[in-house]
């Protein structure tokens, strides 16, 4: 009989220890995740149930008792031109923001990827507009775009681009364009930082090989950069859609949804219906409809981002 090797001894001890360890893991795992789950259940799940319940009643002011009216609020929402207009505006808002932000973010990420003195600082501080309160962003741009004394109008008039100051918030289309650009200004650095991380993961050899083959800059972008960034762009698109859909404060504080409803997106309409016109149940019904539409995006989002796709976790 030979002596037990060191390895076998350690291995034996290890397996019994592992069984105990795994049983404990399950218990501890639940115990650790539970507090957050309870918190979210109380602040999201419960309010959602309240919302659906509220949407089937005719409650106006908070605290007053309503009676059940079935799907009346839903019918009314779909028949209301305001709701349809807001739905359309939300669609335009999300698409336009995605377009402008992606273009700007691509440009910024390409610049930040270069080597230059101070680029590490630039990569961090570029997202300043994202960490600052919206209300500050709003103050900045109202100040810059003001029709009298605003620096943007001053520059536009003095360089002869326009002959008289532009009223950035005075007509419907102009106001909508202004809020879209201001919101994009705020968010594009966030996207740029994410795109930059994606760009840095593309192996430099791919570009070098392409250069040897005499590929043009456009061909490199089309056949190397874009395909490699596809997953990142997809995630950005999904998160961007949900987050920019949700944006309310920029619009509300800049235009209040006007002029005459031109910048009223669904969140603005819901806020207005509930807290300016005091029709809680009506607003709840709009929220539920909006939620169902967004659920489709959210479903795609979690499907794509779950850790299952990760081989290390298998």
């Amino acid at each position, binding site marked *: 009989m030979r002596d037990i090797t060191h390895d076998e001894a350690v291995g034996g001890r290890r397996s019994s220890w592992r069984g105990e360890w795994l049983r404990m893991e399950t218990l501890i795992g*639940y115990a650790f995740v539970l507090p957050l789950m309870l918190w979210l259940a109380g602040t999201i799940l419960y309010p959602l149930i309240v919302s659906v319940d509220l949407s089937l009643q005719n409650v106006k002011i908070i605290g007053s008792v309503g009676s059940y009216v079935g799907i009346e609020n839903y019918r009314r929402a779909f028949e209301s031109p305001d709701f349809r207009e807001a739905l359309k505006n939300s669609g335009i808002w999300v698409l336009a923001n995605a377009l402008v932000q992606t273009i700007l973010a691509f440009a910024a990420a390409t610049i930040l990827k270069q080597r230059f003195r101070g680029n590490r600082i630039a990569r961090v501080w570029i997202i300043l507009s994202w960490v600052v309160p919206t209300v500050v962003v709003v103050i900045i741009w109202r*100040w810059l775009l003001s029709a009298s004394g605003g620096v943007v109008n001053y520059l536009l008039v003095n360089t002869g681009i326009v002959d008289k100051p532009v009223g950035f918030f005075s007509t419907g289309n102009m106001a909508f364009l202004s809020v879209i650009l201001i919101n994009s200004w705020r968010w594009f650095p966030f996207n740029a930082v994410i795109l930059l991380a994606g760009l840095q993961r593309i192996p430099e050899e791919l570009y070098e090989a392409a250069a040897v083959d005499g590929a043009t800059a456009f061909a490199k972008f089309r056949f190397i950069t874009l395909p490699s960034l596809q997953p990142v762009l997809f995630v950005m698109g999904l998160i961007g859609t949900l987050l920019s859909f949700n944006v309310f404060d920029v619009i509300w504080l800049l235009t209040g949804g006007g002029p005459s409803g031109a910048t009223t997106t669904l969140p603005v309409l819901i806020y207005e219906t509930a807290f300016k016109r005091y029709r809680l149940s009506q607003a709840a019904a709009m929220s539920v409809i909006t939620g169902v539409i967004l659920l489709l995006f959210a479903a795609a989002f979690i499907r794509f981002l779950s850790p299952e796709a990760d081989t290390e976790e298998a």
Partner: protein
Amino acid sequence: MASRFRHNLLLGLSIFVLMVLVLAPFYWIFSSSIKLPQEIISATPTFVPHSFTTEHYDKLLGESSFPTYMRNSIVVAVGTMAITVVLSTLAAYGLYRLRFPGRITLFRVILITYAFPGVLLLVPMYQMMSKLKLVDSLTALVIVNVTLSAPFAVWMLQAFFRTIPRELEEAAALDGASRLGIIVRIMLPLAAPGVASIAIFAFITSWTEYIFSSILIISEANRTLPVGLAGIIGQYQIDWGLLLAGATATTLPVLILFSLVGRNFVEGLTAGAVK
């Protein structure tokens, strides 16, 4: 040689344009906030202030309710930060370091709450807070802000926990360290940059939140900075000097915090999206 020069020129120019686009607006509010009122509203804007005054800041701190707003914002942000850090760190440790049945499902649930549009909660949240008699209280804001920041904080922590080798924990366990001992002595120090990042994230989320604060807070005494400043914008005659000083002073705390953990913060931010 010529092409290299052209490349550098183009690069320098594009960096300049990008920096102007991102930073110039901030410079503009700061530099205007120290100008005399007549220079602020003058028809010819001055890029470098010709006058210097602290009168807007004196007014902001002495006569306006700004200090009250600031205090409320700090209370809410610190409360949000503390609760978010505890809840998210626990959950993230459970989700990313432990193996147990159902963890993928739980991860998905947390992710969906992050993607969940907060505006849908506006009406029911008000209803709920009014039932709990929490309308017009800072507690209500802390509750909402934790919900808004915790799911993303969990997601950000993933990037930090992932880099810590599993063998480290196993080795410590073999040496007889308790589970709690492992977490406190090994995991937390290694995940410290991540925890600091989510703390700042929670603070910033709370600092910038406007919608819920605007409906859940009624009295002037309980207003937070964003709602307070928005109130000044809403006045018939805008006092630009005061407002610009307010905007600058509101930006300052975020600048300070962000300069402490900026790099880790940005890394955590991107790691979730780019695997």
